[in-house]
């Protein structure tokens, strides 16, 4: 029997496949494609204290093997999430993780309070490149990462996942700061800051000028960072960035990820998470793996 269970900092998932924040709304749309109960976890769209309209369109540009987005945290606010979206997700037998973003440390703490134990874990988004205040600024300096993690941890009644920005000189330094401040788990990578220009109009394609790069193009950067971080810390790591197949998922887990999230590729193949779960089961069977620990972090150097 194959056991795909994994513990990500106190939260047990039935399997290590999650969906990445912002690529999966609140699950409703993909629930029409497959049973969400098959997923290890759903990470919902980044939430803010108040509703946000996000940035102007166009919010998306295509780049070689990737996309740039500048949604800018459009969301209905945490209250609406709790009242109108969470109950829907709760009908499924899957973990629900709230991704939260604030303008100030206090806002993050308030959101943690409001979420209480109604969700299964909180993912701290301190790395969104698409908002002016807060966002990425929080995530790129060790002391601010330490500060915000420590503060939110005190308000957080469920496992706290800190999501790391790849737009930093030394990702391990940031990871260690988050761990030291009490993070139960780390997730990475958020998007790389990028830009694309339409040479005919001579304007940036994104109305917001810059945006976050995701998709297969970023995978080698993500795998490297997951490898570095998993070696450096003693808490679980959720890997993401360009995963499009079960082979990619295995690659991240060999690099040291305990679980993985599928983001951009949902747009290409709405069934991607399910096909990746199935492929991973097959891989485990073919390789005589009984549990994830039989290959997790088992890269041979």
């Amino acid at each position, binding site marked *: 029997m194959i056991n795909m269970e994994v513990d990500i900092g106190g939260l047990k998932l039935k399997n290590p496949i999650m969906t990445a924040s912002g690529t999966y709304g609140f699950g*409703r749309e993909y629930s029409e494609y497959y049973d969400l109960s098959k997923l290890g976890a759903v990470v919902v769209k980044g939430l803010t204290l108040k509703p946000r309209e996000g940035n102007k*369109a166009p919010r998306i540009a295509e780049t070689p093997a990737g996309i740039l987005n500048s949604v800018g945290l459009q969301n209905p606010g945490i209250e609406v999430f709790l009242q109108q979206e969470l109950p829907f997700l709760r009908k499924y037998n899957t973990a629900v993780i709230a991704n939260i973003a604030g303008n100030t440390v206090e806002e993050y703490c308030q959101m943690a309070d409001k979420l209480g134990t109604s969700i299964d874990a909180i993912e701290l988004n301190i790395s969104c490149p698409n908002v002016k205040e807060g966002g990425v600024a929080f995530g790129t300096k060790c002391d601010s990462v330490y500060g915000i993690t420590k503060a939110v941890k005190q308000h957080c009644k469920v496992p706290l996942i800190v999501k790391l920005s790849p737009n930093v000189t030394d990702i391990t330094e940031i990871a260690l700061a988050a761990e030291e401040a009490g993070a139960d788990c780390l997730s990475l990578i958020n998007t790389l800051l990028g830009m694309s220009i339409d040479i005919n109009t001579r304007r940036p394609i994104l109305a917001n000028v810059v945006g976050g790069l995701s*998709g297969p193009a970023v995978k080698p950067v993500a795998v490297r960072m997951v490898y570095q971080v998993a070696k450096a810390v003693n808490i679980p790591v959720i890997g993401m960035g360009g995963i499009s197949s079960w082979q990619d998922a295995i690659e991240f887990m060999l690099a040291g990820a305990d679980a993985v999230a599928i983001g951009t590729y949902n747009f290409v193949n709405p069934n991607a998470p399910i096909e990746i779960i199935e492929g991973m089961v097959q891989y485990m069977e073919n390789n005589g793996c009984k549990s994830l620990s039989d290959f997790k972090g088992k890269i041979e150097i």
Partner: protein
Amino acid sequence: MRLVGVDMKNEICEIIHNKELTLGVFEMIFRSENIAALAMPGQFVHLRVNTGLYPLLRRPISIHSVDKTKGTVAIIYHIVGKGTEEISKQVTGVIDVMGPLGNGFPKLAGKKCAVVGGGIGVAPLLELSKSLSHCDAYLGFRNCTYKVEAFENSCNKVYLTTEDGSAGHKGYITDQLKKNITEYDVVYTCGPKIMMKKVMEICQLNNVECYVSLEERMACGIGACLVCACKIQEENGEWHHKKVCKDGPVFNAKEVLFDD
């Protein structure tokens, strides 16, 4: 526990034909009983370009017409970039299709209607015109025209303009609409933004109900990623970002706020 029907999927559909109608404009017919059975005029399909990772994203294309008995779907598309160019090269084999997606045009019973299409914007209007009891068509093109005959079969009257005068009247289709606007209760429009703005203006001035089909760059096509934002005004005057893919692509003109 599963409370929502899990019935949507992306289908791998057989391509029946994929041919150039006129310079750079193609018609593709593919087999999908599911889409043919469910599609409403104004909805779209989301096509995967089969060259791998670039372009990565699917391409949204309106459903032009369906043949429920044969279980086939027709689309018309213009080659404007990498994605549509690659799609035009797939003359046989299969194509990965999500759909039908979005909300179509509301059909208002017993009203006098006009459909106003500009260029490739005529695509979603044909099936609509067939389903309306009283409908005129206003078709505006730059130079090449296509599908005019099909509208002639499904509409009372067809007004045709080309910018260069090579077919129909020379000029803009909105000038034709303006002349006759008082004859209609409802106008449905799809085409370049500048044309739709003009149509909306004409309808507003004459108190004619108007529905527009918006376009925006898309990723998921189903409402999950929020990249396809458009500004929609509520009754109370506030605006919100809505999703072209899921809340639209068809909106009531009086709600639509165009930037610039």
